[in-house]
């Protein structure tokens, strides 16, 4: 087994963008058990208040919350401002929100299509850029975002969501290179399908990965110095390598 000898990131103050997403819920619990301080951003003030109570009991040293709709870029300045004033020493930022509509709806409605891109890509790059500048200035920390294995190749059944997530992965790749000289890590998190409210409507969701296990992988990646790109569960790294190597002439005929 590979052992990581690099020092831990010493993650202590974590900003979670999209704190009520199914994935974020599990990640926050594991961070709380480590005694982290958390700054949670999500839409529902009520759910944030409930999360604050839960995570405090689970061991979080401090839980700050801010209610905002992150899909709306004009609200970002206020979120960032609040973070700088009330949580200025944050060392980790995790973007954990996303939206997945039925592919068919994005084909028949331009509004749905644009919303999918707005939530998963446009707004994500905007908020990450704000936080990136701060970490870059302070020469410290880690920036991570949850994209998806769906972004590795455009598929008939899911290419709108996939293209938004794929674009976000490309954005993170560039950002990683930009922040590298400043010593700021950028992690691209690519989960396979996970059992969360986002995937409940899907036919075979019962077979998807356990969010607790996926969260464990993510928290471990945040703590350590590697990898830059995390596939979780790990098998997806190999699956996607295979998928990416299918020639396009064949791939375009596949309906999955």
């Amino acid at each position, binding site marked *: 087994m590979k052992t990581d000898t690099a020092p831990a990131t010493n993650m202590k103050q974590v900003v979670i963008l999209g704190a009520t997403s199914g994935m974020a819920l599990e990640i926050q619990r594991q961070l709380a*058990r480590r005694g982290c301080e958390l700054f949670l951003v999500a839409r529902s003030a009520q759910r944030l208040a*409930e999360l604050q*109570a*839960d995570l405090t*009991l*689970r*061991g979080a040293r401090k839980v700050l919350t801010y209610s905002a709709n992150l899909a709306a870029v004009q609200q970002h300045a206020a979120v960032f401002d609040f973070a700088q004033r009330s949580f200025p020493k944050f060392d980790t930022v995790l973007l954990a929100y996303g939206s997945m509509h039925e592919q068919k709806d994005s084909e028949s409605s331009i509004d749905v299509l644009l919303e999918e891109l707005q939530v998963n890509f446009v707004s994500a790059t905007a908020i990450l850029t704000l936080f990136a500048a701060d970490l870059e200035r302070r020469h410290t920390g880690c920036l991570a975002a949850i994209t998806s294995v769906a972004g590795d190749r455009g598929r008939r059944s899911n290419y709108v969501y996939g293209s938004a997530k794929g674009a976000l992965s490309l954005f993170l790749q560039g950002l990683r290179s930009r922040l590298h000289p400043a010593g700021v890590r950028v992690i691209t998190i690519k989960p396979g399908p996970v059992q969360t*409210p986002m995937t409940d409507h899907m036919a075979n969701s019962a077979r998807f990965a356990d969010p607790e296990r996926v969260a464990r992988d993510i928290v471990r990646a945040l703590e350590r110095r590697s990898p830059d790109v995390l596939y979780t569960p790990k098998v997806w790294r190999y699956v996607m390598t295979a998928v990416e190597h299918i020639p396009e002439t064949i791939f375009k005929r596949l309906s999955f």
Partner: protein
Amino acid sequence: MPELLRAAAPGSLLPYGLGRSYGDSCLNAGRELIDCRRLNRFLGFDESTGMLRCESGVSLSEIIDIFLPKGWFLPVTPGTRYVTVGGVIANDVHGKNHHCAGTFGAHVRQIGLHRSNDGLVVCNADCNSDMLAATIGGLGLTGVIAWADIQLKRVAGPWMDAETIPFESLAAFLDLTRESNNRFEYTVAWLDCFAGKNLRGIFFRGNHAADAGKTFHPKRGPKLPFALPAWMLNSYSIRAFNAAYYKVHSLKKGASVVPYDSFFYPLDSIRQWNLLYGKQGFLQYQCVIPETNVEAFEELLDRIASSGMGSFLGVMKQFGSAPPAGMLSFARPGLTVALDFAMRGERTLQLMHSLDEIVQHSGGALYPAKDARMSPALFEASFPRWRSFVPYIDPKMSSSFWRRVTGAQS
């Protein structure tokens, strides 16, 4: 949740937690289950009194992980920590401390219950106390438990002062029990059901230890990766296991300080242990027989021993005299025994049927949480008051178990 309950058809739903009930009380064949695992937030905790409020999908394991380091433990715990608070209430589970603490339900001070017709109903001793009593042991049929207030108990740490004592007759077991129940918070016995006419077993008793000053390192046990072939578990291999188990524990006889998890949850250390029984699985038989009827208890054990079909997971305990916390609570004064039987078709069912007769004639009862096969008549004998429970059933709820033992259609 309120919308989901309102929109459902009558008798179509059943709340589901971690699915550890052995039979069909957590199933709803051909209908729907509500996955309650996502109702898993802690809502509040009073450090001075130990009163915890949490949602019903929180597992006992999570409660221990968070509150044991703060010096609090579950008031009552079953033999596995991988069950939800909702499931523990719905089955009004008991533990090794039944003789002094009663069932889990006795430590539930208040619940919030989603009912399809009247929304979230708060139930406690002063308000809707009858609904609280119906829900404790109510098999999930009274609605979906949203949250519960549970009285945790102060402990010094994760260590247990435990004692192990071999015994070689039922009389010896009863003597040990009577002698121990005043001095030990937890008592239980492992039973070798292959020892023939002479019953033998190992008596375990313990108390929470004063702070042992030792550091505690939780261990993650091995996992059974696949179902074992059925032939591996036969009367020879089980006989050999039981003899070895008896021998090992006889040698370990005496007092020791052990971690709480090996004391309370020995089986949890082997993940997916149920696969031991192969694809056919197993049935468990847990009954209680009034102590005035020790002969019947003895006859039951004899019948199991002479059948040669018992397994290695046999435990027995004397229940205390605490009044039941719920309308359909199983635990009641008497002797209880729980035993696994690898499923071998008709043979196994016939043996269990013959055990049923003893239980029924003795005025005993069978435990719904462990049952997949009891007859309506035995259910009636075990829970003579079940008809007065019926008005409390939420019209949207039903279960395979309930339809099987009461003949209810919805």
